């Protein structure tokens, strides 16, 4: 039986192709089919799988007659449709209600509170609840974000009710007290309700909370603190009833306090799966895709003690020069790098992950060395724009 993968990138398609004889790749319109399918093996179908009515019609007409062995997705927009199809077809996967709790931050906050682990929540309110928002603001700045946002889009740090009320379509936004501290992401795998961390990354952000680096293992967390973070994640996943499969959870740590930022039933993006592979020897993409088929990935041990993914940014404007990233240190090497722009391209203001201009994977002798090298690389102006002189 085929494995159905929703919204695969070329990397994900390649990983999935190691798991099943044939794939059914379901992609959004505009897919580059040639980069995804194996000749004479895989099927590829395009549709807007975020349209529930269309997805149901698709499932009933084309999947029910020949159900796949499982329906999986490791992209943010695909996890809920995948759960919907799994439910429709009766194939194994993360239950739809669980995915909805991870996708909707208001639902997630409610579940956390109801489970008696409210200390993992920041103070929060609906963006339409003026009084509650006012109360939050009395304690300090707040974060306004869409309840179902992705890729750091539309996240705002605001300090007044007026700013909150200026947000269009406030019904879809949640307001949370801004919590100081360092943010970590924990990729975990759950089996029968037992949650195991496969990698913890320390995150750095810039501007409107756009992620600019991930360092694994986290240089700023002691082993004891790492254990407490993992415990918090386990409590969260229990509260959401996520018993099987991958999760990517973001947690802010300030002293002894831990606040869950968000969680997803998929592996982390931004190359985190590669960091897990480099430091733990786990094929995290394959593990995240194959679990409904009963396929488990062994931990083979990492090739390096630490690794990092660093992203380059540049001031908005026209690209005037690009340079090859290089490091003048012996304890970190650049494993791979790439730029998304070239001279003459326009760089937009940094509002989301899509506005980053390049990336590099680093392998290092220690997490601290990777963290420092990430900062050095980011300071070295790999991409220069005329906006820098303005």
């Amino acid at each position, binding site marked *: 039986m085929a494995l159905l993968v929703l919204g695969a990138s070329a990397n994900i398609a390649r990983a999935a192709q190691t798991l099943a004889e044939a794939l059914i790749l379901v992609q959004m*319109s*505009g*897919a*580059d*089919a*040639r980069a995804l*399918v*194996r*000749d*004479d093996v*895989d*099927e*590829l*179908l*395009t*549709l807007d799988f975020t349209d529930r009515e*269309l997805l149901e*019609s*698709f499932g009933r*007409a*084309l999947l029910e*007659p*020949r159900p796949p062995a499982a329906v999986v997705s490791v992209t943010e927009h695909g996890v809920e449709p995948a759960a919907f199809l799994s439910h429709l077809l009766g194939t194994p996967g993360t239950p739809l209600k669980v995915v909805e709790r991870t996708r909707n931050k208001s639902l997630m906050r409610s579940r956390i509170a109801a489970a008696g682990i409210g200390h993992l929540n920041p103070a929060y309110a609906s963006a339409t609840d003026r009084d509650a928002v006012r109360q939050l603001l009395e304690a300090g700045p707040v974060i306004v974000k869409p309840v179902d946002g992705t890729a750091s889009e539309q996240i705002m740090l605001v300090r007044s009710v007026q700013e909150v009320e200026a947000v269009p379509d406030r019904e879809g936004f949640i307001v949370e007290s801004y919590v100081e501290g360092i943010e970590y992401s924990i990729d975990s795998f759950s089996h029968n309700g037992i949650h195991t961390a496969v990698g913890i990354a320390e995150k750095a952000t810039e501007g409107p909370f756009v992620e600019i680096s991930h360092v694994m293992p986290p240089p700023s967390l002691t082993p004891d603190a790492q254990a407490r973070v993992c415990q918090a994640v386990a409590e969260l996943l229990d509260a959401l009833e996520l018993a099987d499969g991958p999760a990517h959870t973001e947690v802010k740590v300030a002293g002894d306090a831990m606040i869950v930022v968000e969680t997803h039933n998929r592996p982390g993006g931004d190359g985190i799966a590669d960091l897990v592979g480099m430091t733990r020897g786990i094929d995290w993409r394959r593990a995240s895709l194959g679990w409904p088929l009963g396929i488990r990935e062994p931990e083979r041990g990492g090739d390096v003690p630490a690794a990092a993914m660093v992203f380059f940014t540049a001031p908005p404007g026209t690209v005037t020069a690009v340079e090859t990233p290089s490091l003048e240190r012996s304890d970190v090497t650049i494993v791979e790098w790439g730029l998304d722009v070239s001279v003459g391209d326009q760089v937009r203001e940094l509002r989301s992950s899509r506005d980053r201009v390049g990336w590099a994977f680093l392998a290092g002798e220690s997490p601290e060395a990777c963290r420092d090298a990430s900062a050095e690389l980011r300071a070295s102006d790999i991409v220069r724009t005329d906006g820098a002189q303005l």
Partner: protein
Amino acid sequence: MKVLVINRHALKWTTGPNGDYVPAEPSDRFLITRTFGSGLAGHGPQSFPNVFVLDMEDRERLEQVARWIIRTHGVDFLVALHEKDMLLAARIREELDLPGMYHERTLRFRDKILMKETLLAGGYRKLPRFRKLAPGEVVESVPWSGKTVVKSRWGVGSSQVRIAADIDAVNGARAELERMGDELEIEEFIEGPMYHCDSVVRDGEVIFSAPSQYIARPGEYGPGRVAGSVLVSDSNLREKLRREDSEVLRILGMESGVTHGEFFRRPSGEFVFCEVAARPGGGGIDDIVAAGYGVELIRAAVQLQCGVSPDLTHGAKQPTTVAGVIGIYHSADGQDRETSDVLAVPGTRSYEFAPQELPGAVRHCTDYAHKIIVEATTPEEFTARVERVVQMVRRTEVVSEQDPAAEMRARVTT
């Protein structure tokens, strides 16, 4: 206008560069294709953002997906140019009330017995004698002398055609083809060269027609051999063929589309109908028609299936050149090599090399390793140029049992 294209050929052949044969905005184009046979080669998401890649041999799946696309997206027109998809497309059109040829009419261009029976019933007599074979039937005699053709009612690309010299051979061929699950017929073998007529029909009227002669009979394909066809230069012969073809299309009730009709020509000069399809001919026929007449058959076929009348005003009434396609099949060992040097031969308009996709066999009559379009001002010059091209290809490959250049000289009689 929303259009669904079911493609089984090389994608560029069916839809044109960037899908520009399809008269719809890219977002309104839906494409079902396969990876095999370059069906996905050159696909650009900007030309066909709505792409569906399937195993096209899985008929049930193909039909499921096609129906779902049409119903869900409100597709207005369904385009299919491969023989294997013509009936499926007609049935879906009919059931979903889409314009275009329906099943009963299309069947006459697909079922080689019904085709001839319909012509007979319409008063057309220039047919080989034929009869249907019952499953498992042992043929004891045939009511004609000479060789017998055993072939599938539903064959494609001459792959299910056998020429039998005697009754034992007839029964041997019958058993072989039946094992493939075919329904069969037998018909008398007609001596003489074969011709084809490629026509554009709009609302039952033939608005363009290009007669050509086959260099080798389509059923005679095999490793290392040479095939192809050349536009007919003789104006009398051309007109006779056009008349025959028009009559056949009229009786069969062709509505709108591009057709590919085949005829034998007895030594007496009489034409005898072989078969006709309601889709464009393959193997470079469109290239020689474009070279000789300036008419793009594939674009016209797609347009007509989309309810758009093709603009043929720039097409010539007579061929302006002697244009032909030369196809050289893969050699038996499959060790064929690209020979683009042939482009240096004067009059060589294009050269395409296709590495063998399935080892050890020539799959059908247009499964060429080398496909070369050659032009000349006279038939003699054409023959000389083709000889040279074939020799150049041969210099790089295993020599065929036959001398292809000699075969060509014997066959090209235009």
